């Protein structure tokens, strides 16, 4: 079954390309939904490349995020000094890579698709070649990314050496008693993917790269590759390593706790909006890892639901950052003072996005966090849930600081902030997504449940035996 990745636009003009790519992506989206509705599934190259419900789910995720990113890029591109047309090509190539990642089902295709995605980003991050910050970010990202690629390759070779298999499902049958090489291999694999999603302790690139990269690229980088990397993580942990969940849970619990706490506490001290969102992103990934650590089907569902909430809130927040930066040429939080008076729409949008990230009802983030906590509770990880809840309160603080600046403080320059129509549409879609997921999540939850069918037959040896809640009666 071939994939519908047909949106590689011709290099015609500048602005039109942007619109063209959005149209192309929409066509891809429709095709994917058609695939999903008609239950078209299959695999390619002897199972290296699969198209199952989960793959389609993540592909739709990537496509939607790319559409939003493309719509918020159109204005920014006009301001780029050069290479306006290539931008969309690179974005779409990265999106293609991320979509392929969602289908990768063996170690080689994981490696290839991951690098494919990242190559586009190497260029995109350093796109503003006159800007030293962008160059710095690009270099940092490239060096660390290349290093990670090495780690990934090393991990893959260790696993292949130990099992002689490459396909994830085959490895699961081969593992038996894990050898030291195999454990090291999986740890390296996890490290490489942890780098992609930006979990502590592999987060160090995130703030600088987010800060330096052009904002639409940052927005894209913060969502699509993370989603795709999580698809791979889900396959690895829930399929290949499902028999050893008792061992790896501790690793994930640790990563989750440190990511959340570190991200939230450091975010408090930030003065730059993009850096704030970078650290909040690290904390959000910590939340996602809770779902991974839950090691049950519900954990998978909750992660996939969470990603949608994260997509709309995060992309929306970056879209507001872009709009504001176009007018006031600043991304400092201080300059958001009195935004409510300068642009009620942008301030309201930002309010919703930040509160969704914080997990306040009736927004998407609330349901998503609750879903993850319920999954973790069912797995008996009470301590992790407690840490997660404490972090919710911590995160309220810095999100509300921004809200305070926007709503309570008076602007130093009261001139209105105007935004372009396409930006308004993009932000409105993100608002709609945040609200609909929060108020009527039923179909989406049903969709995640359906998309994780593949985890149903997998037998988790969870720790529920050892950690059973001490309920009497």
């Amino acid at each position, binding site marked *: 079954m071939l994939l519908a990745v047909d949106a590689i636009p011709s290099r015609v003009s500048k602005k039109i390309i942007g619109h063209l790519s959005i149209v192309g992506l929409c066509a891809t989206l429709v095709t994917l939904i058609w695939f999903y509705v008609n239950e078209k599934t299959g695999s390619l190259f002897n199972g290296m490349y699969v198209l199952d419900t989960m793959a389609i789910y993540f592909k739709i995720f990537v496509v939607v995020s790319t559409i939003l990113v493309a719509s918020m890029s159109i204005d920014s591109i006009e301001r780029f000094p050069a290479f306006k047309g290539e931008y969309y090509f690179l974005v779409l190539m990265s999106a293609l890579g991320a979509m392929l990642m969602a289908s990768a089902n063996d170690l080689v295709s994981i490696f290839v698709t991951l690098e494919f995605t990242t190559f586009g980003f190497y260029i995109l991050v350093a796109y503003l070649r006159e800007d030293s910050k962008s160059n710095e970010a690009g270099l940092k990202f490239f060096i660390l990314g290349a290093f990670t690629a090495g780690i990934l390759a090393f991990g893959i070779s260790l696993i292949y050496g130990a099992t002689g298999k490459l396909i994830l499902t085959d490895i699961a049958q081969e593992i038996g008693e894990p050898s030291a090489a195999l454990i090291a291999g999986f740890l390296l694999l996890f490290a490489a993917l942890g780098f992609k999603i930006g979990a502590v302790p592999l987060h160090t690139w995130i703030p600088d790269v987010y800060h330096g990269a052009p904002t639409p690229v940052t927005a894209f980088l913060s969502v699509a590759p993370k989603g795709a990397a999580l698809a791979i993580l889900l396959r690895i942990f829930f399929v290949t390593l499902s028999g050893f969940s008792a061992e790896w849970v501790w690793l994930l619990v640790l990563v989750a706790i440190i990511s959340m706490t570190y991200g939230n506490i450091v975010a408090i001290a930030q003065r730059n909006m993009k850096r704030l969102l970078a650290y909040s992103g690290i904390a959000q990934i910590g939340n996602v890892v809770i779902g991974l650590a839950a090691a049950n089907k519900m954990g998978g*569902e909750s992660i996939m639901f969470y990603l949608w909430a994260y997509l709309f809130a995060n992309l929306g927040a970056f879209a507001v950052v872009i709009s504001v930066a176009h007018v006031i040429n600043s991304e400092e939080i201080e300059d958001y003072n009195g935004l*409510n008076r300068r642009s009620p729409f942008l301030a309201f949008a930002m309010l919703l996005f930040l*509160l969704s990230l914080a997990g*306040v*009802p*009736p927004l998407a983030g*609330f349901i998503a966090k*609750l*879903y993850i*906590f*319920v999954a973790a*509770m*069912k797995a008996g990880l*009470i301590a992790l*849930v*407690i840490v997660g*809840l*404490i972090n*919710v*309160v911590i995160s*309220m*603080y810095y999100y*509300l600081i921004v*809200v*305070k600046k926007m*709503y*309570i403080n008076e602007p130093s320059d009261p001139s209105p902030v105007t935004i372009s129509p396409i930006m308004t549409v993009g932000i409105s879609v993100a608002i709609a997504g945040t609200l609909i997921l929060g108020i009527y*999540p*039923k179909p989406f*939850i*049903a969709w995640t*449940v359906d998309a994780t069918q593949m985890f149903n037959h997998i037998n988790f040896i969870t720790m529920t035996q050892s950690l059973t*809640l*001490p*309920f*009497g*009666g």
Partner: protein
Amino acid sequence: MIDTWLLPLILFAPVFGAVALLFVSNQQRFLVQMIAAGSSFISFILSFYLLYAYDHTIGGYQFVQRFEWSENLGIAFSLGVDGIAVPLVLASSILLFTGTFISWHIKDRLKEFYISLLILAAATIGVYVSLDLFFLYFFYELSVLPMYLLLGMWGSHTKSYNEMKDTKKRDFVGFILNFTSNSKEYAAMKLVLFLSAGAVVALLGILLIYVGSGLNTFDIPTLAKHSEFSGTMATIIWLLIFFGFASIAPLWPLHSWSPVGHAAAPAATSMLHAGVLMKLGHFSIIRVGYEILPEATRDLMPIAAVLCVFSIIYGGWVAYSQNDTKYVIGYSSSSHMGYVFLGMAALTYVSLTGAVLYMFAHAMATGLLFALAGWVYDQTHTRDIPSLGGLSKKMPFATGCFVVAVAASFGLPGTVSFIGELMILLGSWNKYPVQTIIAVLAIVVTLAYLLRMLRGVFFWEPGKTIPHETELKWAHVQDTNGFVNRMPLLVMIACTIYFGIFPGQFIDVIGSSVEPLLAKIHGGTESGVLP
């Protein structure tokens, strides 16, 4: 027909009002005011209908509406009221309706103000009518954020603690947490962080109930019927639920956010805050703790009986030494909430019914006090009692209302507070005589600080060195005038006095739900098994 949609209408009328306001410009002031008033009026009228339509001969949950929300997680949007919720829904919608008029003259961003106020009121009503733990928490958490905006955007700076040289006047529990700031932003942030912290503690309890019951449902009636918690786990969950929700109640020593929040908030927000937001705590403890964990409630409620004494004495003592009118009322609210906890702790029919009735009564009385304190502040731009005084000549109507409010607040016979207070004290006497005696004595303290404030603001005039000094000082001060300013005060006074003279319907309605609840709680002791 109306019965089917009664609760959704009460709940969503303010929400729709808020949504409609999003599409109106701030320039069209009159339209903004009309939408806010209209949507709150719908809730107001229907809540009265609810009180009389609730059939107390049957009891239990009535007007139940259920919409599946997520089968996978076991969440349903389930609405329904029992006798305990009815008076609180009524209090919320009365205060919303009157609050809309109290804030009629706000100049800055009126539309945003009304949106926040309507969402806040809808959230509190939502808690009272939710029969699903998830939605109870959903609305509970939803009520916090509008408070932040209301305090931060339209609030006023509180008086600095550091300026107060007299250490007796410092609220030392609050002072520990009050590092340097005393601004409205500080008050707003403190409120949100306190309430969020309390909320997540309660959420942990809720999640433990959800997972521990193994029923895969958040439905409160189902959980109350079928879940079985006992031993350590029941204790842990109960403590989480109790202290999580008690932080909003606010029970000593978790109260320090509350007076600061009152003082910073605009009048209508203080009214809703003291009137109904604080009752979310008591209500949620009853709804979750009492219904689902009756055994633990019986065993652990003495904790509340001890802490409530601190609330009563401490709140009264600090209120007496405050010079800021809103601080006085704020601490008096903390003190009065102690009475509610006493009534709840005693777990007798009379005391628990009285506690619920008192919640309604307190909402009316405090609403009046805050509305008038707000009016005085708007006119004189000060809340400092020593710099006020002699206002009775300039605002006779407001003074009259304030006298009624003071009477209602300490429980003069003829007001609904009297009945509530009396029932609490009578009901608790057998079980907690010491606490009851302290509570009775504390009424004297209440009287003392309220009369001190009444005298200081309206009657007392400093030594007349210059003739007509007071008249000159308050030359620009106006009395409450016109329909918009007087009507809300009269509505609250009417409710206080009407239900003070005819509390029958209330007591029947509340009692119809209190009785089975107590039977469930005490059932265990008599027969040795849970019903």
